[in-house]
């Protein structure tokens, strides 16, 4: 009996000692890394979070890793700790992390309305010093500005996107169709396709912003470049005739069966795959998808060769074809509460510079920094898009990006109802007006 007790006692003691030793070890380790951050002789770690997982954005993902490797090689003593999330998860994670004040040192943010609460809550560091240090001159005019709040820049833009209608040349040829230049021609194209049993336009409106692009283009062509912007920033009204008419035209398209059936229940990815599998003739998307139509080796060459694009047509002879709906995509932020802010800024500006060139040559996306397209060997469609950008008369920022989170969600819900024929154009305008004035 006594022996048994003794054995139990010894084992318990050993266990306690083991646990104590374990704790002590980990304390030592954290102590080490703490001094490491302060001591320039040792490594400091910059946490970096991005939203291009290998699965869905292979090229982007690889380029990021290359840039990180180069940066680490050139800057001994700085280590990049990487975390990758997909788009929706990324947005959730940003909110959760910032509520707990645990944002990464460098990460990605969207412009305008998305940015505001983070800036108000002192979560992002102003990057004016970097901008004045020469980085500012590299951005295409208008891109960095959308990351400004009260005159300070809080994000370094990485992409610039414009939206086009892409179409399947093979299907168009089969029915002798041409790129439409006016809305009436587009309607005829749609009619011809429907009569022959083809799905005219792929649209994944479960994601809602896809439908918003169609509405925004109608608003732009009918009412000009400013009418929607004015309504959003409250210098104008959403009940403007042009905006109501834009909603009417959107519903006309739905009534003409222009879009694939069940579009309100389909995700953008599903619509895209219909377009890319020759099941729909047209698809509106922004230039971030250019790689799928040009360089992406995973997409069959035959399909890539048969993709063409046209600018959103004029409506009733109104509108300017060189006015685009689009905007900067994501940009880099640096955490205001970062322990390694200097290193983080260094990394962020290095990243933007490298990204500019590599994005064009390797990923085939349009970066937010100016690129000399002449000297590079680029796919034709890509060169055309760059040319369009040079000739662009206006770029209207995506409505949901312009608005604050709550109003943007109302807007997107209303878009879905509009496409679902559940509200009239007048109600659509009225409810927007209400949401915006309650801000």
């Amino acid at each position, binding site marked *: 009996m006594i022996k048994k007790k003794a054995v139990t006692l010894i084992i318990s003691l050993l266990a306690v000692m083991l646990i104590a030793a374990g704790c002590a070890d980990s304390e030592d380790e954290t102590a080490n890394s703490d001094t490491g951050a302060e001591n320039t002789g040792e490594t400091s770690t910059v946490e970096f979070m991005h939203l291009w997982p290998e699965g869905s954005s292979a090229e982007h993902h690889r380029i990021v890793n290359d840039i990180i490797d180069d940066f680490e090689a050139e800057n001994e003593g700085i280590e990049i700790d990487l975390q990758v999330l997909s788009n929706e998860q990324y947005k959730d994670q940003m909110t959760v992390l910032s509520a707990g004040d645990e944002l990464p040192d460098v990460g990605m943010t969207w412009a305008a309305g998305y940015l505001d*609460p983070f800036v108000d809550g002192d979560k992002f560091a102003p990057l004016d010093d970097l901008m004045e240090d020469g980085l500012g001159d590299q951005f295409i005019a208008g891109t960095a500005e959308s990351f400004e709040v009260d005159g300070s820049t809080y994000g370094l833009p990485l992409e610039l996107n414009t939206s086009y209608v892409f179409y399947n040349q093979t299907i168009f040829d089969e029915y002798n169709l041409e790129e439409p230049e006016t809305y009436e021609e587009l309607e005829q194209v749609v009619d011809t396709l429907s009569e022959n049993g083809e799905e005219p336009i792929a649209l994944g409106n479960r994601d809602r912003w896809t439908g918003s692009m169609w509405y925004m283009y109608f608003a732009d062509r009918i009412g000009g470049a400013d009418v929607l912007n004015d309504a959003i920033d409250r210098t104008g009204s959403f009940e403007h005739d042009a905006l109501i008419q834009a909603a009417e035209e959107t519903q006309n398209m739905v009534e003409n069966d222009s879009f*694939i059936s069940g579009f309100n229940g389909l995700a953008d990815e599903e619509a895209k795959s219909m377009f890319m599998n020759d099941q729909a003739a047209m698809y509106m998307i922004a230039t971030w998808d250019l790689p799928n139509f040009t360089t992406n080796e995973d997409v069959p060459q035959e399909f890539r060769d048969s993709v063409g694009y046209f600018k959103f047509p004029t409506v009733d002879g109104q509108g300017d074809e060189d006015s685009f709906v689009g905007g900067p995509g994501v940009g880099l932020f640096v955490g205001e509460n970062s322990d390694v802010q200097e290193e983080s800024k260094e990394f962020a500006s290095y990243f933007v510079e490298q990204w500019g060139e590599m994005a064009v040559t390797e990923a085939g996306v349009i970066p937010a920094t100016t690129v000399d397209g002449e000297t590079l060997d680029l796919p034709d469609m890509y060169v055309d898009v760059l040319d369009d950008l040079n000739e662009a008369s206006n770029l209207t920022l995506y409505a949901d990006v312009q608005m604050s989170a709550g109003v943007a969600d109302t807007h997107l819900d209303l878009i879905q109802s509009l496409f679902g024929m559940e509200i009239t154009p007048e109600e659509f305008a009225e409810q927007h007006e209400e949401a915006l004035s309650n801000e």
Partner: protein
Amino acid sequence: MNKVMSNKWFIALYIFPALFLVSVLIFIPLLLTGYYGLMEWDGIGAMEFLGLDNYIVAIQDANFWDSALHSFLLALFSTLSLIIYLAVSMILASKIKGSDVLRKIYLIPMLLSSVAIAQLWIKIYDPSNGVLNTILATFGVENPPLWLADTNIVLYSIFIPIIWQYAGFYILIYYAALKNIPESIIEAARIDGASPLQIAFRIKLPLIMSIVKVTIVLAIVGSLKYFDLIYVMTGGGPNGASEVMASYMYKLAFANNDFGYGSAIAFLMLIITLIVTYIVRKLTATKEEIQY
């Protein structure tokens, strides 16, 4: 040993770890959620005290009550589907050929994660390429339903995979309970000339009634806080037609950056679920349990 167990200090010592974890992981977050509901807070910046405003707004919020209605509909359907589960497990528990294989088939959805199930059913419901509409088309249906895009039917379209998803779980519970009934009782009934239906309704069902009550509570509570499949399959759309309380709360907090209001909704959800659970317990309470 008995001496140790009657010592209050020892009882406290043994309970403490569990109590500590439960309070840190469950009760404190619950109270915090209620507290955040009193705030105007975007989840990022500073909080501002509002008092009960969020709760008052929530009670008048038609969208919230719509989503609550959808949650209750789901609870109703889940409870009704228990009848099917019960019937299936009765058949499986009686000695029929291949019941082993069938039981495993019913269990498969339990092995899949919700996201995988959602993806699977999105493919099934796909309006032009989906299995369902392809079959309907071969039968000559001209305009097959747009399962996930039609605001009138989207809710029911989602209920089906949810009911399918949980079938294995409930069938397993019922199956285990039915297997626990001593064979001698059934045998005795059979000798007395009871038909299989009489055995099912007069003997088996009363004997597993306590388990049935537990599953009713589980189904209702589970439905009221249901979230995952709906979030993945439709995100609550089109236009809120498939929004349930949990997805509405999530949308407010994470998509609209309105954490204060989202927390208030979450707390209301808790209260509603508690009330419903209480009512269900009261309704299903019986004076004495039948024993075998």
